[in-house]
């Protein structure tokens, strides 16, 4: 591991023609990342507010579905963020089990799982409310709704299991296995509308909808994306700090005071 890092460092030193230039580039990259971490919520939240206005006032209602069609601009981005975070968690889980286990990878998996759960619950709640005026019921055990429930319950179980297991390596392995199971159910969620006879509509295409609807959906999706990326970033940093606290060496006992009782 150390040799690999050394080789990579040597390669980049040669690429940037000297250690000083490499240090400058690394410093610039760190500053850019710091700026990006601040920029994500600063851009994302105002975008979400403006996206709300677009969805509720600017965009025309869909012809047949009427006002409830406006729910799409919050429901669909929330579910897309759920899938993105699921992919992140799946990648980190595979990396932990098949690659080299590291605390950073486990922290990334944890961040992905939690943010996935947050957006998944929001997406399902919104979908359930949308179902009432369109399907006539809040809930139906159709393939998509059933598979997404299984997926979210798996993530909830993973987050609960992480709290009970004290050994960091065992905890990471258990949650990585659960992450892979959850990702398998995510595949079922995505394709369920095509594979089974589902009440839920199949994925739409921008080619068959009005440009105003596409613009509003894209705007809200980017707003959700910036916010979700910031959530994952912050949650990752929190998880890293928690790991550092777990593996930190115990503090030395205080030195006995002079003339005090030993």
């Amino acid at each position, binding site marked *: 591991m150390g040799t690999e890092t050394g080789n990579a460092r040597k390669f980049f030193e040669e690429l940037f023609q000297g250690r000083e230039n490499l240090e400058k580039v690394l410093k610039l990259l760190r500053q850019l990342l710091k700026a990006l971490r601040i920029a994500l*919520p600063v851009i994302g939240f105002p975008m*979400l507010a403006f996206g*709300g206005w677009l*969805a*509720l006032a600017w965009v025309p209602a869909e*012809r*047949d*579905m*009427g*006002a*409830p069609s*406006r*729910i799409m601009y*919050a*429901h669909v981005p*929330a579910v897309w963020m759920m899938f993105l975070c699921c992919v992140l968690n799946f990648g980190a889980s595979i990396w932990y089990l098949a690659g080299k286990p590291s605390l950073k990878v486990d922290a990334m998996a944890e961040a992905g799982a939690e943010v996935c759960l*947050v957006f998944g*619950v*929001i997406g399902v*709640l*919104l979908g359930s*409310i*949308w179902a*009432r*005026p*369109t399907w006539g019921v809040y809930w139906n055990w159709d393939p998509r709704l059933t598979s997404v429930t299984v997926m979210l319950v798996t993530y909830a179980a993973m987050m609960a299991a992480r709290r009970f297991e004290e050994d960091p390596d065992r905890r990471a392995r258990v949650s990585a296995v659960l992450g892979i199971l959850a990702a398998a159910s995510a595949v079922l969620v995505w394709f369920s509308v095509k594979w089974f006879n589902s009440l839920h509509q199949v994925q739409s295409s921008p080619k068959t909808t009005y440009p105003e609807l596409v613009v509003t959906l894209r705007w809200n999706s980017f707003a959700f994306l910036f*916010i979700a990326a910031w*959530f994952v970033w*912050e*949650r990752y*940093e*929190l998880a890293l*700090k*928690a790991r550092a*606290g777990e593996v930190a060496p115990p*503090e030395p006992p205080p030195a006995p005071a002079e003339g005090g009782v030993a």
Partner: protein
Amino acid sequence: MSVPLLLAQATAEHVQEMSQVGAGRIVGGWEYVWACYLIAWIGIGLYTVSILVRRRGRKGTAV
């Protein structure tokens, strides 16, 4: 029963059935829209607060 009467009865039944069929378009439903956006905004807001509180807690306990 005579044929014209049967026809008239069938037409009346058809008109009655058709009157029960809507235009296929949803009317109203703004209460569902507002409920959804409130849930989405409150959910995102609460998670933001949760992240900030945990971040502050970590800073407070950092050595």
